[in-house]
């Protein structure tokens, strides 16, 4: 199975890189957010605001990039690619994991681009913090991509994938506290926010970038993200190995 996962991963990655247009567009919105909104925030809150804002933009990117991964499988299903692969001896789990791995690598690349743009505007991060942050993005990407695939394959009317996904993604983005920290939120909103795994991921990212490596916030972010990824992969696998899809 590792071999088949690797084969699918390489194939999918090549296809993604061939469609570089899509990759750039995927990262364009977060980068614009960074460039057009970040300086404003910095003017109000001081240069330290980049430390808070860049992790938020990375969360936005993860939701838009890995969270919409299912879009690709809608086409694979429609073109008959998925059924063809499902009839090969490759374990169906490998068909999922190979794709998820592609989304992870793509998201890491896009995240580096966001960090680089942030750097140009004055965002500073210690190398160790950056590496820990990127490592934290891995389980986040895994869970978002796996759930997105499962959702796309379960959906009866697949043309509804994009509208329904955005309907989920936008509230998740707001509740995660990616755009503005939840610390000043009213209690009910704070509770709602804590019910999503993304809140912990964003706060973990911020702690990592701030150099608080031993903090409970960072540990919490890692634990929640890894647990969420495990659940998401289990759900995704169930969908992929089902007979009827």
């Amino acid at each position, binding site marked *: 199975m590792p071999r*088949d996962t690797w*084969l699918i991963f390489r*194939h999918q990655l*090549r296809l993604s890189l061939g469609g570089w247009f899509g990759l750039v567009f995927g990262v364009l919105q977060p980068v614009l957010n960074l460039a057009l909104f970040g300086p404003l925030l910095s003017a109000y809150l001081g240069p330290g605001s980049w430390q808070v804002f860049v992790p938020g933009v990375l969360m936005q990117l993860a939701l838009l990039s890995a969270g919409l991964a299912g879009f690709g499988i809608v*086409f694979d299903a429609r073109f008959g690619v998925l059924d063809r692969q499902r009839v*090969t001896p490759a374990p169906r789990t490998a068909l999922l994991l190979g794709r998820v791995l592609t989304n992870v690598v793509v998201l890491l690349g896009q995240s580096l681009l966001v960090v680089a743009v942030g750097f140009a505007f004055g965002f500073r991060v210690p190398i160790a913090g950056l590496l820990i942050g990127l490592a934290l993005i891995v389980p986040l990407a895994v869970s978002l991509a796996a759930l997105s695939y499962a959702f796309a394959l379960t959906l009866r009317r697949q043309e509804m994938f994009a509208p329904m996904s955005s309907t989920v993604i936008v509230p998740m983005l707001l509740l995660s506290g990616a755009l503005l920290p939840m610390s000043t939120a009213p209690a009910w909103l704070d509770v709602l926010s804590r019910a999503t795994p993304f809140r912990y991921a964003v706060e973990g990212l911020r702690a990592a970038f701030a150099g608080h490596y031993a903090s409970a916030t960072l540990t919490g972010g890692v634990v929640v993200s890894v647990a969420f990824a495990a659940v998401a992969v289990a759900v995704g696998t169930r969908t992929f190995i089902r*007979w009827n899809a």
Partner: protein
Amino acid sequence: MDHVIEARGLAKSFTGAEAVRGVDLTVAAGEIVGFLGPNGAGKTTTLRMLTTLLRPTAGAATVAGCDLVADPAGVRRRIGYVAQGGTTNPSCTVMRELVLQARLYRVPDPHERARDLMARFGLTDRPIGSLSGGQKRRLDIALGIVHVPALVFLDEPTTGLDPQSRAEVWRHVRRLRDEHGTAVFLTTHYLEEADALCDRILIIDRGRVIGEGTPDDLKRRLSGDIVTVEIDGDPRRARATLAGLDAVREVQVTGGTLRLTVEHGDRILLQLARALDAGGVEPRSVRLARPTLDDVFLALTSSEVTRAA
């Protein structure tokens, strides 16, 4: 004889609809079997069950020596499947798609195999989106047989192709069987295709197999042959003469034309001529026609209608 498919009572119901209602079928090693039926008959559903893509709601099957439900992975290793609506990503290239497929089947030299298949199927390495319909279909088939399976399922391999491309696909299917002994189970709407290509035909309608046999068998068994006799003058005498013959099942008269339904038209033609001669009838022409599978199919499916009504 070795069987590559043995299915008993295979059935599939979707919420509110029975798509396949108890299909029995066997396919021998190296046999080309056609699955013929109108839209919505249940052909694709049956194929998707036999290729481990759909779980049957009832019935059992052994495919390529493995039990469908107990050992789907074993089935997958041994079969090839070419789905109805195409199987390729338009933004991928021919070579990449073939190489990945070869690797997933653990074909020893994937690049070599891909080049070999491209040469054999007349394909060049291009973005798949730029291929013609016929080229794309040939690529689908190449992908389905990359591992030289003992059994390949082709779901409407020639739908939407022009006559040349269709003949080209037929050539590939025959070659597959002749060179590798691959059994082929294909679906089609085209009677002429089933007739030209298949050793045996199963006719399916509304989820049930309603006829089975060699193309010749089916035609003979279900309709007999048609002999048309045209005469000048009064047809009554000719009619009386011919209707007395054992081999003649039915005589219809329209003007000076008599349409006889007979058994074994090829053997009886001379006997007819002699009888006419003896009866003093001078026919203008006598023609023998084999019924087409269209006749067979219409006869079968319309009797199904009357039965259902």
